[in-house]
């Protein structure tokens, strides 16, 4: 029985039928393989997925520091997304909403009689206390069911208070995972925020946006530091330490960098259609990947000064980490890892592991789509199921004023030939092989199984698995929260990541788990003891 069969072995007919297409063994030949993804989870399996609200409020909108994001619903949803994701923010003007949690704390009477009045009143109170420029409403499950027209409330308060108010119908039951919420959030930001400032057309310059970077543990700040050092101007970050204000100017950038493809590719594509801003799939996780990314951005702009600065910065950064890099490589080389995270990181982190000689033997995503595994070339072949069809896809038209002059076709094709991921993402599979295994929408049982089979030296996942994995005797680090450390991005971040990995694998306590009396006798005596005489 091979590894894949062993994982599936225990399942009953129906579960087997569902799960078999989500577990793929990748062989050396690199033959393209198809995986089932972005489909409903099997009820009763202990999965790691969250809901649509989590994707919309928790992931994409939550990090906006200057925006009051009101959770419309019972208290729990707003409570759990309060400060838990580590999307750091620093407001120079002291107006930082990240430390706050806002909710309508809907009660039974609101469920019976409707919650629109309460929502309206809540926004009024938020405006009176905090004077925000923008308020966003995120709906939770019961709101959709009782039919509150949150968009109508948003329109009312816009008139009444002169604010921007956007309502997101991101009820938890929509779609099959957080992924639906990303899409809904993307739509709202594109329709109402991006490009809403009264800007003038800027001259062609090195103006970029970073898309799908949520500044977990300060990752975004580290990227900005490098990019600014080279000479780029970062217009907006979506949405780590992001601001409503910055987003309104995002359409004036010349290039979009896409870090998390899963959560933000919709905006990247729509900005291409509307403003002709090219996007390029980057990866700032890993030393080699950061170098590749920086060089590709420089290639895109094709400016000698930028190219020179890029090489200088790479040189400086490499020098600053050289010693530690060598040390951690010596400690980690030859180890194996499992990587299970949301929708992009399982791919990104394989690269930084490679930097230190660690091989990823098992990997998977919680809520990715097929293109995140197999590459965007499969997009035309993905059949939309009912759950996906229910998530609105919006279309945008070219903007008359801000339609950029981007790369000419020839240069575009040339860059693509050099494997620059322009308007393209190659997916995770192309970097895996060798009999490694990929599991989509992995669950508790499968996680235990793959641990038993592959016995990796370390397993990267989230808090729901972490303690189970450790109880089994495997080191486990969280790649959602970085175990309250970070940043993990770029050169210095790679060292922090390696250091945490090293500390986890080599924690002295691992060697003490078996008590000495389990292996050595404690009772001693001699034959013919004279005391017994």
């Amino acid at each position: 029985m091979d590894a894949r069969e062993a994982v599936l072995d225990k399942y009953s007919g129906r579960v087997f039928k569902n799960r078999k297409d989500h577990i793929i063994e990748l062989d050396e030949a690199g033959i393209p393989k198809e995986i089932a993804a972005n489909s409903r989870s099997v009820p009763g399996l202990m999965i790691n997925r969250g809901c649509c609200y989590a994707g919309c409020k928790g992931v994409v909108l939550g990090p906006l520091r200057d925006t009051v994001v009101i959770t419309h619903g019972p208290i729990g949803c707003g409570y759990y997304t309060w400060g838990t994701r580590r999307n750091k923010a620093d407001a120079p003007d002291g107006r930082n909403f990240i430390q706050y949690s806002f909710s309508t704390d809907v009660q039974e009477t609101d469920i019976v009689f409707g919650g629109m009045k309460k929502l309206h009143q809540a926004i009024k109170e938020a405006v009176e206390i905090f004077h925000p420029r923008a308020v966003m409403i995120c709906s939770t499950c019961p709101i959709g069911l009782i039919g509150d027209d949150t968009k109508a409330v948003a329109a009312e308060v816009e008139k009444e208070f002169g604010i921007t108010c956007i309502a997101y119908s991101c009820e938890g039951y929509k779609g099959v995972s957080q992924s639906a919420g990303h899409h809904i959030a993307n739509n709202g930001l594109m329709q109402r925020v991006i490009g809403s400032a009264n800007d003038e057309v800027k001259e062609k310059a090195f103006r970029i946006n970073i898309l799908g970077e949520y500044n977990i543990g300060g990752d975004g700040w580290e990227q900005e530091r490098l990019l600014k050092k080279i000479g780029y101007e970062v217009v907006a970050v979506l949405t780590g330490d992001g601001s409503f204000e910055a987003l309104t100017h995002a359409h004036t950038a010349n290039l979009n960098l896409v870090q998390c493809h899963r959560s933000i590719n919709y905006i990247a594509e729509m900005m291409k259609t509307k403003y002709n801003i090219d996007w390029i799939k980057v990866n700032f996780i890993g030393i080699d990947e950061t170098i590749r990314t920086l060089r590709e951005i420089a290639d895109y702009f094709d400016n000698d000064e930028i190219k020179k600065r890029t090489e200088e910065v790479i040189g400086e950064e490499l020098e600053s980490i050289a010693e530690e890099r060598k040390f951690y490589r010596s400690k980690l080389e030859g180890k194996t890892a499992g990587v299970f995270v949301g929708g992009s990181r399982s791919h990104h982190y394989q690269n930084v592991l490679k930097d230190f000689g660690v091989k990823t033997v098992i990997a998977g995503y919680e809520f990715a789509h097929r293109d995140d595994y197999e590459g965007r070339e499969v997009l035309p072949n993905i059949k939309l199921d009912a759950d996906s069809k229910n998530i609105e896809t919006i279309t945008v038209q070219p903007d008359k004023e801000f339609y950029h002059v981007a790369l000419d076709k020839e240069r575009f094709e040339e860059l693509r030939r050099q494997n620059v991921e322009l308007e393209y993402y190659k997916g995770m599979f192309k970097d895996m092989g060798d009999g490694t295994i990929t599991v989509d929408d992995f669950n508790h049982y499968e996680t235990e199984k793959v641990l038993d089979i592959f016995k990796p030296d370390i397993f990267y996942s989230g808090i729901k698995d972490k303690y189970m994995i450790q109880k089994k005797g495997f080191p486990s680090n969280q790649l959602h929260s970085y175990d309250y450390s970070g940043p993990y991005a770029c050169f210095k971040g790679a060292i922090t990541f390696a250091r945490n990995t090293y500390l986890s694998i080599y924690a002295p306590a691992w060697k003490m788990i078996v008590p000495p009396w389990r292996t050595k006798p404690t009772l001693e005596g001699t034959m013919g003891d004279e005391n017994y005489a």
Partner: protein
Amino acid sequence: MLDMTPKKLAVRKALRINPAKTCQPVGAMYAALGVHRCMPHSHGSQGCCSYHRTFLARHFKEPAIATTSSFSEGACVFGGGSNLKKAVKNIFDIYNPDIIAVHTTCLSETIGDDLNTLIQQLDIPAGKIVVHTNTPSYVGSHINGFANMMSGFIKYLSEKNAVPNGKIGIFPGFVNPGDMHELKRIAKLLGVKYIMFPDTDGTMNSALTGHYEMYPKGGTTIQEIRELGGAQHVLALGEITSCTPAMDLKRKCGVDFTALPLPIGVEATDRYIMALSHLSRREVPAEIEEERGQLLDIMIDSHAYYGDKRVAIAGDPDTVLGLAAFCLELGMKPRYMITGTPDEKFSKKAKELLLKYGVTDCIAKANTDLFELHQLMKNKPVDLLIGGTHCKYIARAEDVPFVRAGFPILDRYVHPYMPLVGYRGAMRLIELICNTLLDRQDRDAADKDFELVM
């Protein structure tokens, strides 16, 4: 930190800011984790289950197992029956618990899924059990969810005509495994036969062995919950949390109960021990009296540091009442006692307690939030803040000494193993409180005033 919180208080009727409560299902999940070989099941969207497991894992630093019905949009229209059916089959097939404890969510409550009927229609394997409770998130708080889950177990399992077994049922309230452990230790020292329900000691503080047990050795057994019906008496600790399930047990099985405050501090622990002694007709052993004496000794030794210190306490209602009682015993005066749980019994109990110590200027409020507490503190400051981790933002903003106690504590370790209850728990509280006050004194002292001996 919290720079946008204005000093001026404004009446809020709709906007909750920085809550001091969360929703019912997480309490239900925690209660179910205190039953041996039980799988908590969340009947709703998969996000609820994910959030609750995450939150419990963050507080306890332990795996928090639970499954979900994974509602889709279709399930909202057609009802969640089919999802529950599939889920229950898969849970027994794959995770093999002895019992599944289903709790509802705002979603399944709003569409009106009738769990009684749905469970009756299930095909449950022989020897296995499925129970449920209703935990609409838009009513009460996690404290009510905890109580409702207990009631759910009682309604399904506790036997009406059980043979009297002479055992004392102990309902510990929403506390840590360390507290449950301490409550049991005291009962054992007295030689009392008891049933602790629920009991997360052993399930949410399990050992690292290199072998993961999905169902560790701890937890109230199904048999014990059945036997609750034949218990001699129940001690419902934490009047706001434990009275509902105790009432339900009384209604169903006729078992009388005594409601007591959480045994935090001297008097409340005295009452717990007196009740155990009275019910079991066993004398309080010297060992317990010795512990009590040691606690009093420490209270006198360190008394000088508490005098008239003003305290703000935030958290779950019974925990706040217990902490306030002990603060008063130490000689401190609560200035604010707040909970997010909407239950007016809290303010009433708080007033009674404060009156006993002649404190008339303390604001005790249920159904409020940490934003209001912060505003209150800006107007009339305190010397010490006690509460869960979310209070750390206020402590930093106002530079107030801060002691973590209660739920949730997300940013420290060991606390789930350690008690707040009993005389040992009170000693620990003194260590936390006194050290915090002394650390502050050290921090603020000029070099010339920096004391070696304190």
